[in-house]
């Protein structure tokens, strides 16, 4: 399998000298779904912004064989889209259809193709009925789905998603995971960030862990990473607390929505 994303020795420091990323090395194969997990403030969003050239760090980034530089930026952004953490940042046009059309129109697509692709993308996220509604009137879950679809209307090969399930209720979360399944089946390369271990276990082929030192400390199949309790505990992805199982109060490592055994409850 050839590489869709190749990152070598990427460093990023914010203008106020805060370290954003430290020596990031990451390869994502075409069609692969990789989830980057990490606690708040570990640089997950910073990494995605670097990959799409919004932030510019020091190091090598290659997207579908194109080195990330000013010359290749437009080509790269045609093939790779980013879903922002807050859908309100992404949906800035008066109506949903305008938001869908924004990307394709900027790519110079024909009007009929833009409308067709926009409607296909809306159908994929099951939001056909909201086409002419103002984006800001949608619920948070709907906004998240529409934000994903605004990228799908551009038909990118690679999807970067910043906390796609963040802030969603359980049903919206499940619906979004179903959409991600469809995208996986279509062969899209997905690189997402999350600390929702439930979503990770549902869709990830591979998981990378970003530590508070802003570097990748583990990279492997999701089963291997998620079963490493010590790693997850150390990186603040699960925590130890007391909770109740029937009449027993137990204390053990626990991540909500993440399965765990209860053998020690006596």
């Amino acid at each position, binding site marked *: 399998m050839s590489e869709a994303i190749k990152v070598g020795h990427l460093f990023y420091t914010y203008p106020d000298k805060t370290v954003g990323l430290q020596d990031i090395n990451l390869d994502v194969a075409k069609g692969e779904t990789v989830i980057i997990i990490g606690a708040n403030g570990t640089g997950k969003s910073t990494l995605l912004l670097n990959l799409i050239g919004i932030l510019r760090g020091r190091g090598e980034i290659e997207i579908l064989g194109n080195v990330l530089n000013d010359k290749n930026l437009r080509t790269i952004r045609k093939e790779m889209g*980013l879903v922002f953490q807050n859908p309100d940042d992404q949906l800035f046009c008066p109506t949903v259809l305008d938001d869908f059309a924004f990307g394709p129109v900027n790519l110079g697509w024909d009007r009929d193709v*833009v409308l067709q692709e926009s409607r296909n993308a809306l159908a994929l996220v099951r939001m056909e009925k909201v086409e002419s509604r103002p984006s800001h009137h949608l619920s948070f879950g709907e906004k998240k789905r529409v934000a994903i679809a605004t990228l799908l209307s551009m038909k990118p090969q690679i999807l970067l998603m910043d906390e796609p399930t963040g802030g969603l209720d359980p049903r919206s979360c499940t619906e979004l995971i179903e959409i991600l399944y469809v995208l996986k089946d279509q062969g899209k390369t997905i690189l997402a960030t999350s600390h929702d271990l439930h979503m990770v276990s549902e869709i990830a082929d591979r998981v990378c862990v970003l530590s508070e030192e802003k570097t990748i400390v583990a990279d492997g199949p999701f089963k291997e990473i998620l079963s490493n309790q010590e790693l997850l505990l150390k990186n603040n992805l699960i925590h130890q607390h007391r909770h109740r199982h029937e009449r027993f109060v137990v204390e053990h490592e626990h991540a909500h929505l993440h399965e765990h055994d209860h053998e020690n409850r006596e």
Partner: protein
Amino acid sequence: MGFDIFEKNTDRNNLIHRLDPRTKLIFSLTFLVLMVLTPVKEIERFGFYFVLILTIIFIARISPVYIFKRSIIILPFVMVVAGLAVFFTEGRIIKEIDFVLFKLRITYEGINILLNVLVKSWLSVVTLTAMMLTTRFEDLLSGVELLKAPQIIVLMMSFMYRYIFVLIDEAVHLMRARNVRYFGGRFLSQIPVFGNMVGVLFIRTYERAERIYAAMVVRGFTGRIKTVNVLKFSFTDVIFLMVTFVFLFPVYFLLTTD
């Protein structure tokens, strides 16, 4: 808060709404120039201008009351600026008010200036409000661009329109956060709080605007405003401009009271 404050009514389907934005821009600009150049003493001509705009508003099926309510917002600003002219313009004195330390003289020329600014600015706002309520802002921008307005002006208008709602949203969030923890107190003690809020508002809006710009850039925005709606200058547009100009120009050039 959102685009609906401006986009309300723009999705209707009638003669005025269907017109090409360029037609509306050309008409509005011509109308405004002629109206502003008309001396305020020409009451009949202003009556005609008002009837013309009112007719357009009726054809567009927008409530005149709604437009007039929105247009009133300009009056306090005009009164502050032009109101002073009533007292400080030299000319024929109508009334003199004697205060102990100074005298205020209301002059005929001063009232003339006030009326001039008041009537013209109000009619201008009514005209522009009618245009905004019958045209989607994106289409209006495309129209401005197609009329060869400088790209920088179009961009500034576009960003102002996008970010004004960001500013309002952030201000509303800050006010809510303050209100849930405000239990009354002296107004003076709140002044530093408002000062801090303005500072925070600026920083938060700036950061949010940066994120929105990033979202635009990753979807191919290169500094040109593009829309999925294709503008068509049709026969109806030509007829509309001809009919309105046939009334407008003779009224301006021929019907003088001198």
